[in-house]
């Protein structure tokens, strides 16, 4: 008991008081086997993606036209594509693009969306109307035109593409969050916080955002895959990454064309994408449960 309270005090000194939810959530998450396995899988894929330039057996653009498309062999574990490029290498390099677009674009969407929605919902009235009409306006703009405009103005860069995708995906997030905030801000505990003397910003950060996390996490796990696929669509339009660079999306769309002759070209990148998405969903569900103290008892 003594040790525990000492630990707690140390923890409180090091972090803000809201942090025990985070710690409890981590303890709960650790008990969820599917979520933990998914977490390790994702970390493993991310690690591989980081060290790919040193680890990859071949160069991603090195062609071997004599070889053409072959199935898995001792030298090419997953075979080669129609131009004789090593598929494993290309999937490894692809994961760099796909994971970073998934991560960065979703983080951008999450950040803007949660902040925007929370502010609109919490302040209400004219501020809410103004902010949400802005969202409606942006909804009305065709997404691809928006991206084309952005790339024309700012030039083509990978990071900008990620930001642009994120900037388009936050709209739905903002709406979801606003709806949740509207119902939560009427609860007595928010009034109690006002009565205690918390500022609007403190109330939003400490009491409102932790209570909207459930739907936010679920929507985030849905956003990441759609963002990864969006990137391949943009690449197809010539706005994303260009050959010979590869992403999972572009590998899959390339594989579709030769699906009947060389099914491996779609199966392996597709498998990677599916496994990643599975893992994301398990992890998302695990996080949602872990962050809700009511969902489990320990």
């Amino acid at each position: 008991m003594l040790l525990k309270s000492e630990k707690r005090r140390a923890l409180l000194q090091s972090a803000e008081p809201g942090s025990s939810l985070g710690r409890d959530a981590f303890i709960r998450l650790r008990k969820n086997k599917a979520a933990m396995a998914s977490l390790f899988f994702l970390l493993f894929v991310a690690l591989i993606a980081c060290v790919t330039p040193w680890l990859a057996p071949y160069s991603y653009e090195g062609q071997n036209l004599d070889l053409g498309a072959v199935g898995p062999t001792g030298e090419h574990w997953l075979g080669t594509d129609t131009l004789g490029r090593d598929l494993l290498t290309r999937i490894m390099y692809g994961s760099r693009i796909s994971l970073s677009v998934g991560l960065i674009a979703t983080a951008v969407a999450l950040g803007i969306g949660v902040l925007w929605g929370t502010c609109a919902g919490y302040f209400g009235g004219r501020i809410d109307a103004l902010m949400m009409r802005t969202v409606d306006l942006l909804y009305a703009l065709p997404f691809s035109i928006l991206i084309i405009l952005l790339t024309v103005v700012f030039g083509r860069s990978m990071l900008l593409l990620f930001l642009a995708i994120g900037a388009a995906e936050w709209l739905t997030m903002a709406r979801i969050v606003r709806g949740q905030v509207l119902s939560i801000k009427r609860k007595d505990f928010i009034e109690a916080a006002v009565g205690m003397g918390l500022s609007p910003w403190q109330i939003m950060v400490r009491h409102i955002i932790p209570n909207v996390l459930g739907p936010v996490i679920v929507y985030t796990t849905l956003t990441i895959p759609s963002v990864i696929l969006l990137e391949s669509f943009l690449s197809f339009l010539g706005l994303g990454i260009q050959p010979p660079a590869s992403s999972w999306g572009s590998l899959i769309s390339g594989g579709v064309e030769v699906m009947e002759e060389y099914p491996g070209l779609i199966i392996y990148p597709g498998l990677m994408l599916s496994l990643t998405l599975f893992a994301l969903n398990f992890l998302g569900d695990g996080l949602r449960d872990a962050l809700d103290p009511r969902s489990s008892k320990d």
Partner: protein
Amino acid sequence: MPLLTVNNLTTAFHTRDGVVTAVNNLSFSVRAGEVLGIVGESGSGKSVCCYSLLGLLPSPPAKIMGGTALFNGQDLLALSQAELRQLRGSKIGMVFQDPMTSLNPSMRIIDQVAEPLRIHFKLDKNTARERAILALEEVGVVDARQRAYAYPHEFSGGMRQRAMIAMALIAEPVLLIADEPTTALDVTLQAQILDLISALQKKRNLAVILISHDLAVVAKMANAIVVMKDGELVETGPTAEILARPQNAYTQALIAAMPRGAKLSATPVNHSAAEGDSPLLLEVKNIYTRFIRYGGWLVRRKTSELVAVNNLSFSVSAGEVVGIVGESGSGKSTLGRSILRLIQPDSGQVLFAGQDVLRMTPRELKNLRPQIQMIFQDPYASLDPRQTVFDILAEPLLLHGLAEGETLGQEVQTLMDEVGLARSAVRKYPHEFSGGQRQRIAIGRALALKPKLIVADEPVSALDVTIQKQILQLLQHLSEKYQLAIVFISHDLSVVRKMCDRVIVMHKGEKVEEGSTEEIFAAPKHPYTIALLSAALQ
């Protein structure tokens, strides 16, 4: 020959933690023309037993483990869902607690009342509607022919409950199950609805099962009483017998906790305050608050206006407990929130220690916050579900820099001792506590800043009677110990009588009467106060 005979009913819930028995080996019977009251605290299994009879429990997790329930010679527990559907609404009517949630908000009252006839007797729409109007008239809906076409939200709480009763009785059932039919209503309405049920019961020779946590309600209505606790039958017998000679300790406790106007053992009147030699702490002057609803597209137009608090003034001395009484909608909660400036009134002053709270800058207001705190009605809603008890109690202390690091832990533990919570519970979340314990946490949070004034908005209305008594005693103790002034808002006169030195009666946003507790209860002057007092069940 009883109409309904329940023998050894056992219902269990299969949860993650294993099997929880909600009703254990329960037996009772009801005859035609008889009212049976089932009394118990929340969680005692009184609702579950009736829901079991009608097959209304979700299964899984609920499972009826054994027993029989003979209704007109049929065993209800052995019937299929299809057979039960034939009985529900036609032979057995049901009235639920909250008429707002148990009526369909998007369906006209008349069609909801007529629905049992359309389903069970396949009547056409117009015939069924005619019968519905008659039924609404019978339950006392004025102008039923016009008002029947309204939607539930256009009815008041009492009217909705009348509509619910009309719906339950329209197919002329022989048994009516009423689950807390008046709990969500004000005292004056409560009396009206109980009288209505009683009148209809006599007229139609109905058998009624009345479920309530409120012994006073059951004592008024029932011929026989079943007392339940933790899923088991504690005591049963004729009402007069039970009230006069309760055998079981639990029944005795329930009867003792029954509000009968008598004061708690500790005298609430804080004499120094009552005699007026304490300094004035709070002075509320001419508060006027109205709510304006805006509508219209593009241009905001005023569509309706409601004056919630009309030109109301009162004052509170240090250490004094002032009760504000009124029905729901009388503006008493709005008034309470105005004191903390959770609502900005349109005009008036709230002088706290001489300073006007309503005209303070945000910085001044933050400095004032520790002095005035609030306790809310619903302890389920007033605590952030994602904070541990430690976080909840530590937050105000950290925010106002009253404690940190070393002292924080000690302060939190002192608070927990003060409000009677086990220290070991510090890492738990609100949902792991019972209603009464949660209200203790909320009181602890209010106390953390060592306030001089607490505004308590219906602090015990959501709690069971035995728990109510404990919480009231805690508040009283704290008020005496710390010279804490309390503005005690309640619709429950017996609670106010126990707690308060002075009472203010509110009606439709206005103060209709003010005086010391003894004066108000002994010799009420205003007709509304008299009506309120006579409606409160004796």
